[in-house]
């Protein structure tokens, strides 16, 4: 996807005589977002490419592409003086652990920074314990602190539904109210992402009817299927410059079919491989002469669950 620097385009229009410098300033004034630097736009391009490179997540990728196009078009409309939709980018991420929610949030931060919607694009990851305090008033203060830390970036609340679990009297309610208020007061300051299991998030949104309309973007992260898990394994191995012996490959495929590993969780795959890497290291240390190939090769024995 092509990202054209908005500020640069306005400057080009001044230089080629299609607008006066006064008009350029008017356009820049209307653009209530900051104009990203070239370095940041490069970061967005890289993040987009990285997102495309992730295994699976077809719907997520399609939606992010749509979102980028929407942001760009609204900006162009604003530049031309046309009515533009306000950008509300708060999101709900639904999916099991290890399905890529945090990874996608990090990439979105970089993309939004490059598109000029977020000033910094960093991700502040919090959970209930970070937001909820111990006495009345404490929660609002703690929640505000988290929001302040996320200023210019993304506030990512994992297992967000736990904020509503305690019912009306729980301090979690206070955290939700503080979040909702900040979403209105600091509209363009931060993006809020509420993440959690599909069913729990559904229940959460049902019990807080006002919330759903404030989160126009909902992304579902399905569990990875067996083939996707294998592709993820390949990616991890490639990044770390390791290869599997044919036997190890077969064993890995079988391991990922086992009930305890077949929960569609990318973290499980990563852990399996990391464990194998450590075991390979131990195995190699007992050898006298270690070749480059041996350093790269993970054997079936390294992957075994019961390790002798």
């Amino acid at each position, binding site marked *: 996807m092509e990202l054209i620097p908005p500020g640069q385009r306005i*400057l080009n229009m*001044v230089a080629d*005589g299609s*607008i*006066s410098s006064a008009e350029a*300033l*008017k356009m820049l004034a209307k653009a209530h977002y900051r*104009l990203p630097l070239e370095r940041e736009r490069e970061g967005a391009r890289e993040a987009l490419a990285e997102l495309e490179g992730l295994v699976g997540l077809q719907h997520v990728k399609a939606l992010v592409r749509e979102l980028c196009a929407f942001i760009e078009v609204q900006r162009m409309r604003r530049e031309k003086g046309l009515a533009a939709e306000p950008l509300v980018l708060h999101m709900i991420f639904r999916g099991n652990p290890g399905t890529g929610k945090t990874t996608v949030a990090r990439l979105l931060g970089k993309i939004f920074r490059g598109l000029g919607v977020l000033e910094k694009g960093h991700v502040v990851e919090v959970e209930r314990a970070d937001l909820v305090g111990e006495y009345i008033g404490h929660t609002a203060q703690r929640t505000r602190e988290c929001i302040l830390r996320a200023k210019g970036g993304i506030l990512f609340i994992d297992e967000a539904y736990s904020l509503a679990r305690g019912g009306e009297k729980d301090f979690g309610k206070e955290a939700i109210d503080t979040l909702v208020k900040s979403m209105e007061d600091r509209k363009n300051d931060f993006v809020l992402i509420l993440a959690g299991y599909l069913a729990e998030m559904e229940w959460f949104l049902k019990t807080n009817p006002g919330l759903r309309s404030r989160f126009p973007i909902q992304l579902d992260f399905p569990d990875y299927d067996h083939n996707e898990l294998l592709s993820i394994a390949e990616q991890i191995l490639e990044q770390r410059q390791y290869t599997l012996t044919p036997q190890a490959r077969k064993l890995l495929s079988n391991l990922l079919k086992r009930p305890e590993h077949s929960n569609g969780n990318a973290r499980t795959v990563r852990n399996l491989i990391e464990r194998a890497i450590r075991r390979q290291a131990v195995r190699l240390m007992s050898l006298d002469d270690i070749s480059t190939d041996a350093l790269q090769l993970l054997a079936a024995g390294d992957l075994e669950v019961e390790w002798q």
Partner: protein
Amino acid sequence: MRLCTVIGGPNTGKTLFTINFVEYLGHRRLTILSNGGRRARTTLSPQAARQSLVSAREFSTRTLMELEVRLGRGIRLTLIDTVAISDLVHPDTSLRRAMAETVDVIRRAHVLLHLVDSEAMIRDPEGKLQAIDRAIATYASTRKGYAILVNKTDVQDGRAAFVRMKQAYPGLPVLAISALRRRGFKAVRAFVSVKS
């Protein structure tokens, strides 16, 4: 280094202000970091600069000039004298390119000194601001390091123009200066010295 940009419409006295202000800050010579995009550190006496760079014509400054300024206590500043910007599209291509560069440094500047010509305000039948000045003020009014310098307040009715300006922009720092007579420079120095 912090960027301080001198901006304004045609013939508002940007270049004369820049030279005289640098001299006021105690510099015997101007240290030019770049001129028209060419990076070459040179120095020039204020007198020679005034003779060669300042004129009563519009658009006599055709390129951006970056100067190095020391404010004392180790604070350094890059002061940029810019090309006049306007609400009209200028037929000269190279001047338009320089205007685009000016808009670019306006975006990047930490401190914006917006020069307004009080004589032009007086000439206007309703005493109103020029269109370009309104556009600049609208763009920059939400920024921290923005000040309006009403120049040429040494002329007759110059003070009146300044008062009118202050009333029009109550929330903004509006300073009366005379680039020619070097008046009001103390307040400008205080303004650019504040870390925003």
